[in-house]
């Protein structure tokens, strides 16, 4: 959708990312998804009287990893606040969150816009908080069920500046956050299980207007598609109201994907007063400089840095570099293949070609790959050393994949797949071919270079693919020029 002429859009995203800790942020209960209702909620998650929260230190580490990855300032004094409101799936009647002292301040993220140019989206802040449970309306006619398994799951809420100018940029930014969180392995990124949810703050204004327009917040978008659609519908709605001479009220809205519309939940006037105040059950946590420095030094190489390295140090194409650096484990795998093979181009071709398609075919992740990077690297070495041809390599790859062998070298030896690089073994074959095919030989000699392939193919066929194609090439040319 293009933006109507004369209008511009301003979008800020609040992204709720579930951090992948094993236990909850303020209790020892498990965060496993998909268990039977209320089986993963302990007394703390249930908000029983007299129980107290204690912070799972893992969440600080993960939040700091994220903050450092976007170049943010880390708030060393981490405090929690209570956000008060009544709802059946909020057991304590307040949510423990960070209002005044978010752990991550500032930072920025690069995205690619639709015309391929890079753009910076500024992050305002990111803070830690607990997730609420779930209300299951009409689970029996007229009754609402409460499942508190999710209550207390740690969330990192990442708030952006209104730097996003259209739905495509919003999706690009959301995907960039998704990629970074999964790359850092601090969030499983499973959208279907609600591990990442978006609230979009959207406003429109005339092209020449300096001030931001009246905004609406669209809550709880749980897919990139819904995010995109909601922005389209909402901007359309806002522009049509304004073009009809109407005014907008600041409100919170729900997106209805079935009816293709956003609906107002509450306006600013009727908004809840959350009565934030410092959480007295948790003392401020001081993150030491050493703690932050240790995280800094153990941060993985980030995707953009990695892609850059692949392009400059290893001369990979932009697309190879981007593909191999988007997933941390894939990048690690590739780096290892690179180390064992010493051939970046070939390693990239094998990994993004044969390996990824096999993984895809078998629905495996790179961490479950049956071929170790060492063995793939050794196979590439065999090609480079002229021991096997590319054609034989495909067979060896298949054997490695199906675990017929662990070592490419052994397999080649046992099956006598070594390339025949001994000229004395090939020469008689070439001589015979030239004699048997005088016309083709004459044409080739006359400059019909296409026919070289005919002769090479014949030799390869006769050797069962074991001849060294380059050597065969050279030998044929040599023989023809001799005559």
């Amino acid at each position, binding site marked *: 959708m293009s933006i109507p002429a004369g209008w511009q859009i301003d979008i800020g995203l609040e992204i709720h990312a579930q951090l992948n800790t094993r236990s909850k942020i303020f209790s020892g209960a498990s965060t496993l998804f998909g268990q039977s209702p209320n089986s993963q909620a302990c007394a703390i998650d249930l908000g029983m009287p007299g129980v107290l929260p204690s912070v799972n230190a893992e969440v600080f580490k993960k939040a700091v990893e994220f903050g450092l990855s976007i170049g943010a300032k880390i708030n060393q004094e981490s405090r929690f606040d209570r956000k*008060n409101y009544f709802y059946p799936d909020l057991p304590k009647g307040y949510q423990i969150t960070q209002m005044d002292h978010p752990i991550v301040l500032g930072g920025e993220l690069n995205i690619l816009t639709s015309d391929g140019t890079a753009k910076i989206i500024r992050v305002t802040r990111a803070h830690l908080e607990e997730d609420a449970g779930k209300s299951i309306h009409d689970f029996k006619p007229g009754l609402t069920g409460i499942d508190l398994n999710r209550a207390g799951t740690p969330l990192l809420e990442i708030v952006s500046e209104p730097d996003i100018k259209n739905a495509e940029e919003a999706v690009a930014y959301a995907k960039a956050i998704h990629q970074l969180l999964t790359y850092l392995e601090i969030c499983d990124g499973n959208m279907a299980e609600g591990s990442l949810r978006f609230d979009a703050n959207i406003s429109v204004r005339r092209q020449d207007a300096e001030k931001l327009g009246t905004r609406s917040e669209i809550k709880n978008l749980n897919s990139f598609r819904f995010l995109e659609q909601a922005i389209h519908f909402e901007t359309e709605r806002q522009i049509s109201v304004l073009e009809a001479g109407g005014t907008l009220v600041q409100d919170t809205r729900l997106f209805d994907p079935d009816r293709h519309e956003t609906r107002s939940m509450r306006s600013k006037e009727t908004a809840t007063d959350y009565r934030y105040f410092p959480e007295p059950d948790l003392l401020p946590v001081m993150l030491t400089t050493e703690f932050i420095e240790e995280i800094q030094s153990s941060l993985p190489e980030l995707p953009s840095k990695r892609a850059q390295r692949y392009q400059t140090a290893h001369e990979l194409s932009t697309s190879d570099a981007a593909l191999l650096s988007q997933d941390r484990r894939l990048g690690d795998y590739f780096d290892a293949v690179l180390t064992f093979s010493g051939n970046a181009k070939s390693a990239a071709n094998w990994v993004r070609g044969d390996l990824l398609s096999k993984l895809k075919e078998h629905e495996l992740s790179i961490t479950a790959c049956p071929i170790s990077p060492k063995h793939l690297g050794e196979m590439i070495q065999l090609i480079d050393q002229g021991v096997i041809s590319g054609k034989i390599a495909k067979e060896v790859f298949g054997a490695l994949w199906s675990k017929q062998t662990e070592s490419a070298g052994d397999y080649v030896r046992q099956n006598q797949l070594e390339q025949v690089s001994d000229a004395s073994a090939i020469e008689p074959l070439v001589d015979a071919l030239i004699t048997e095919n005088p016309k083709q030989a004459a044409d080739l000699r006359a400059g019909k270079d296409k026919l070289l392939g005919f002769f090479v193919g014949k030799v390869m066929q006769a050797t069962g693919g074991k001849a060294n194609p380059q050597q065969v090439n050279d030998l044929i040319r040599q023989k023809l020029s001799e005559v």
Partner: protein
Amino acid sequence: MNLNFATLTDLQKALRNRDVSATELTQHYLTRIDALDPALNSFISIQAEAALGAARRADERLARGDARPLTGIPIAQKDIFCLQGQRTTAGSKMLGNFIAPYTATCSEKLADAGAITLGKTNMDEFAMGSSNENSYFGAVHNPWDPKLIPGGSSGGSAAAVAAGLCAASTGTDTGGSIRQPAAMCGLTGLKPTYGRISRWGMIAFASSLDQAGPMTRTAQDAAILLEHMAGHDPRDSTSLNEPVPNFSEDIGKNIKGLRIGVCREFFTEGLDPAVERSIREALAVYESLGATLVDISLPHTPYSVSAYYVIAPAECSANLARLDGIRYGHRCLDPENLQDLYQRSRGEGFGEEVKKRILVGTFALSAGYFDAFYNRAQKIRRLIKEDFVKAFEQVDVIAGPTAPTPAFPLGEKASNPVEMYLQDIFTISASLAGVPAMSIPVEFANGLPVGLQLIGNYLQEGSLLQAAHQFQQETHWHTLTPPEAL
């Protein structure tokens, strides 16, 4: 020996010498509770069977000779401490049927040390009150005179010990709820440094102020009980990671040279002249023991009540939000919708004082009022803390009255909240600062107990207990018992 008013130390000895068995002792108190408590109403529930079971096990242990420090000692616990499998009401209709699925850390520690819990004591609803008239389970009567209040909010715990219905009890103190009832009932009551005793399993009133503590006949008993209640607990982030000193062994040292600060702001207009006389008399005793009195000022004391009545209600407005009728606790009949369920469950479940404080706290935290109330109160709180820090550069202990008057008649102040709130005028500042403070009985006024408040520096419960113990070595006020026939 007379078991009714025996101290913990006496009972420890008697149990070990097999002069009395844990079962006899437990049965003795249970019989007294049956006979005397209907007039006092100090217990909300009695766990006779569980107590007798524990007593049998204690006797086996005593017979084997591996008694723990409190083995066989029957105590009572304020009904704010969760005990697994037992009803824990916090004095409220809201939790009238609440069976706790876990045990408070300090109760667990006491049980581990061998103490036997006889039952749960009455209290002002959610610990909000200074007279114990705010309990859903009815008012508690003062054993010294049943027409009088026992103080609050740990009024049941105070009355039960004072009447000899148990050897000692636990209480909680948010703004004076251990010290003031101890003063009114002639007991020794200690509110430790904030964080000394874990708050896990103790139903919260105001999280940044709540502290559990012992209510006993003597300072020595308080020292013994404190040793078995205190200690770091990873389940309470505000609990202090500090070693627990051997309080009961350290109290014997003399107090020659102890510098006692006499705070000018504690001798104000509202102080009953009879109470003031008793306090001055007690200070004279200290001088005779070799202590030096130093005139000091805690200049921000006059603002403490105002600050407290913003901070405590603000915290309680959030702490009590979980009592919504959804998962446990009182739920109204046939709610029409969610709003109705919330409104009627909470409307029916909470008493007037609790509702008042929730409203005050909600207001103080509201947008537009937060700075004027909550933030300002926190500023006062910091100033009060600084007052104490400065004062303790000059003195070791600060002394003054615990409450402005002795126990007053039931109903007298019920309609005058401000006058009721002023009951805590001398106790609140130590709560806001988080320093330890205790009350010990001094010379009676008009036949009624009067409490001397001793306030110590952070983690200096030892100095307080030592000062209290030395005073009790010289005086007999703590040995007086109320008239037996109620």
